[in-house]
């Protein structure tokens, strides 16, 4: 029978459709680096390692319980937001530049439809989550910010995984579970954050590196 040839043909078609329509130009090393950035940033905030611009030391617990005086809380909060934004920005730049280099090497234009679909599905939840977090800050619900970032990021990853690495789905669920746990253990939000954004990215980065980049 010629049946097996037909099956092989269908297999080849499916395989190539998937390979050519999924964004797969992340650099594993860069993902690992973003994990370390997250750990460094979160530790700075969590352990309050003498970089407070104001020399006022407020622990994360004091911040979310708002037990310190309001002025120093505000300063601490500004510091926290600056560090978080800095991490986010440098991570995005790092991922973008390395993806650009990687796609250049493979002769692929980074800005193709796959890439934009991935970005869109990731950033719709992420952006709404970001705005939501700003309102949490506005309403002084500091303790829920870390859990909320984890949850919205998880949702973004799950939806982006359709157009990119299918393994992103697992990372997404991981972040979601951590975010939900962190909402319950509110005082430990930053620790969950370190696990999710730090450890999660390092493991995922290693995985990408050895499974895809090494080929």
């Amino acid at each position, binding site marked *: 029978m010629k*049946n097996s040839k*037909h099956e092989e043909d269908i297999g*080849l078609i499916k395989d190539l*459709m998937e390979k*050519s*329509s999924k964004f797969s130009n992340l650099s594993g090393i860069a993902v690992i680096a973003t994990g370390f950035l997250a750990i460094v940033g979160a530790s700075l905030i969590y352990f309050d390692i003498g970089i407070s611009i104001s020399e006022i030391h407020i622990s994360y617990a004091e911040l979310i319980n708002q037990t310190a005086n309001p002025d120093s809380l505000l300063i601490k909060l500004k510091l926290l937001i600056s560090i978080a934004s800095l991490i986010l920005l440098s991570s995005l730049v790092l991922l973008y530049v390395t993806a650009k280099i990687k796609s250049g090497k493979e002769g692929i*234009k980074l800005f*193709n439809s796959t890439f934009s679909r991935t970005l869109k599905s990731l950033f719709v939840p992420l952006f709404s989550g970001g705005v939501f977090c700003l309102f949490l800050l506005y309403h002084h619900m500091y303790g829920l910010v870390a859990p909320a970032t984890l949850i919205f990021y998880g949702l973004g990853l799950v939806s982006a995984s359709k157009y990119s690495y299918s393994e992103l789905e697992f990372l997404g669920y991981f972040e979601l579970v951590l975010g939900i746990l962190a909402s319950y253990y509110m005082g430990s939000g930053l620790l969950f954050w370190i696990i999710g954004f730090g450890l999660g990215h390092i493991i995922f980065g290693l995985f990408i590196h050895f499974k895809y980049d090494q080929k």
Partner: protein
Amino acid sequence: MEGFNLLNKAFDSRVRLGLMSILSVNEWISYKEVKNLLDLTDGNLASHVQALEKINFLEIKKQFIGKKPLTTYRITTIGKNAFKDHISGLEKLINK
């Protein structure tokens, strides 16, 4: 045998079948990208592309980005329909 009538001789070759698979889920896609996806060497791809262009299954666009030439391909409606028929032909034959 039902199904065989839907198969297209143009897709007998694995390279052409692969090429059409890629084109069917993408907009304009570059020579280099296709070459990498199909794991081909230079020159191997060109003859297949020309054969498919001849029967109007794909269109070729040649342009310059700065000083570098860039060749891109896109599937035509005729090509898309032929490829769809071919796939349903394959599926019918498998599900017999």
